[in-house]
């Protein structure tokens, strides 16, 4: 194929020469080779490979969740920078900035709402992205470490959300951060100095606001940017998994990224942007009265993504509810790709028909069991009361945890006895715990009333 001939510079007009100096190579490219070259040569597009798998383009495989996270980061960066220009991070002025956004500043509410809802949506989409990768075995060799980085990114997203939660300096912010950082206090040895360092003192105050502001606008975004660059680079190098039906080989057909993937991304981003702007135009981010350190609201709840942990804390000794159980959960999450190397099921949703059935069953079981245990704990279960001679870390920590672990191991062995493969049984166990955590979060958000008593969600 002949290279496109470019006329000598002096034969072009000035405007054409300026345009040519911005875009390397001919625009638009005329053939597949030109399109691939364009992707390779472009700073922004080169995060994609020149060609991608056609079946992996199907929205029902990836749901565009990774891309949506990038879009949300971009919206957060733009709206965040705008908010920087009106926000003052001091206890006296922060809440005034919120009032100014609501009353004086043109589109102030819209920008704050966009920032708020995009940030919260990012936690949800981050979890969904993790689940998509999990249930299509997208973490198997050579992608194990990218899974680990993804988990790290999810933690950073939560950290970004949590630090941003304090900035409006209203009652909601103040007490959610007080309760949230108090969870950290239960870490043995390092808990107290770490909390002091984060808060800049022993309570949430002016120093906390400065600290959280610095973390929210600089430290965490830089961390996310660095890690996400690495994450995407690995996706680019390792390529994404190819979807396939059970019992069939993967379709190896490839198409050029430009325009097949790029156009999908563009439309997808535009649709989400429209949805988010519409939502933010009508639904306001919450703002309560200004923070009052002397008066806690009843009930005082942590940020919604921590409600599962706060709920755990109602049932376990603090060391277990806040540290050991979440720690075990995180450790297992990081170990998943190193334990599971079943390469035959990559790209198959839920591994197999049996895997699908077991996952569905485990999800329902996890939900039912969690509701059951929470209710039992409310009306009957009382290890500290039955065993008053034992320290509470034993009676309300090790003993119930041992029962739980035994039940989980029993369930795993039962699944394998009934013919489930290792990876299917592990997936079922993961699903059970996921359902349990979702249920705890639901109970914490909707079913805890005054004094944290159990209530029905509609009362």
């Amino acid at each position, binding site marked *: 194929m002949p290279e496109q001939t470019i006329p000598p510079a002096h034969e072009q007009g000035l405007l054409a020469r300026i345009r040519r100096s911005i875009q390397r190579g001919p625009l638009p490219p005329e053939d597949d080779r030109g399109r691939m070259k364009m992707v390779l040569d472009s700073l922004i597009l080169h995060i994609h490979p020149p060609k991608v798998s056609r079946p992996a383009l199907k929205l029902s495989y990836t749901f565009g969740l990774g891309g949506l996270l990038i879009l949300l980061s971009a919206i957060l960066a733009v709206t965040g920078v705008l908010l920087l220009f009106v926000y003052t991070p001091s206890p006296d002025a922060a809440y005034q900035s919120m009032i100014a956004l609501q009353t004086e500043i043109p589109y102030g509410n819209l920008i704050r709402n966009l920032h708020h809802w995009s940030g919260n949506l990012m936690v949800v989409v981050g979890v969904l992205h993790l689940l998509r990768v999990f249930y299509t075995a997208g973490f198997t060799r050579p992608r194990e470490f990218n899974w680990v980085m993804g988990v790290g990114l999810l933690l950073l997203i939560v950290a970004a959300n949590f630090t941003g939660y304090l900035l409006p300096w209203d009652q909601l912010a103040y007490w959610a951060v007080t309760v949230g950082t108090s969870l950290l206090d239960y870490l043995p040895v390092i808990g107290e100095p770490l909390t002091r*360092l984060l808060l800049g*003192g022993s309570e949430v105050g002016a*120093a906390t606001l400065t600290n959280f502001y610095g973390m929210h606008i600089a430290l965490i975004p830089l961390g996310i940017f660095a890690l996400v660059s690495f994450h995407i680079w690995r996706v680019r190098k390792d390529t994404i998994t190819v979807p396939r039906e059970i019992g069939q080989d993967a379709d190896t057909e490839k198409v050029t990224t430009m325009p097949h993937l790029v156009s999908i991304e563009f439309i997808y981003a535009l649709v989400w942007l429209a949805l988010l702007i519409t939502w933010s135009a009508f639904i306001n981010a919450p703002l309560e009265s200004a923070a009052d350190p002397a*008066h806690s609201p009843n*009930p*005082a709840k942590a940020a919604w993504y921590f409600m599962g942990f706060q709920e755990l804390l109602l049932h376990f000794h603090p060391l277990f509810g806040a540290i050991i159980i979440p720690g075990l959960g995180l450790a297992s999450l990081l170990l998943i790709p190193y334990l599971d190397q079943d390469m035959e099921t990559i790209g198959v949703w839920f591994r197999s028909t049996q895997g699908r059935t077991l996952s569905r069953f485990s999800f329902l079981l996890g939900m039912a069991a969690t509701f059951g245990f929470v209710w039992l704990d409310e009306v009957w279960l009382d290890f500290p009361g039955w065993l008053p001679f034992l320290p509470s870390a034993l009676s309300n920590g090790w003993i119930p945890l041992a029962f739980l672990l035994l039940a989980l191991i029993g369930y795993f062995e039962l699944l394998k006895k009934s013919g489930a493969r290792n990876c299917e049984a592990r997936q079922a166990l993961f699903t059970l715990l996921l359902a349990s955590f979702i249920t705890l979060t639901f109970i914490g958000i909707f079913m805890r009333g005054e004094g944290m008593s159990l209530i029905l969600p509609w009362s």
Partner: protein
Amino acid sequence: MTEKKVSRKDFMNIIWGAAGAAAAAELTLVGLRFLSPRSGEGEFGGTFNLGDFNQFPTGSVTPVEAGRFYLVRMEDGGFLAVYRRCTHLGCAVPFDQASRQFVCPCHGSEFTMDGDVLNQPAPRPLDLFELTITDNGEIVVDTRNSIERDEASPAQIIYA
């Protein structure tokens, strides 16, 4: 024992590696010290001089808003500086004059006047601040560090 030989190259690698680790440690320490909490006198995190102890009647609980603690004078005349922060999850605990108890609005923990746990989920009694009574009878409370205690005991009560 055979002597393990370290080549010149290995030796230099170890020295440079150690220097790098030392630099990283120093900078981390500088950063942490730079970010460590500050506090001044007369505001929370500093010391409070509350004046003559005789002005507080026995069996009274006086909130010191700026210091975020309660000055408790027991029936027998002894003093305690009780930190307002609930030991469960950090909410501000108000004193209920009617029941003579501290009742946490967040998760329902209840404490006696000297901060002992009456009702869970609080895992331990309310924290204390160091309280001293000077030679001329002035009460000084140091709010720099709260004192955690596993049990409330009469030994913690300060007498003039």
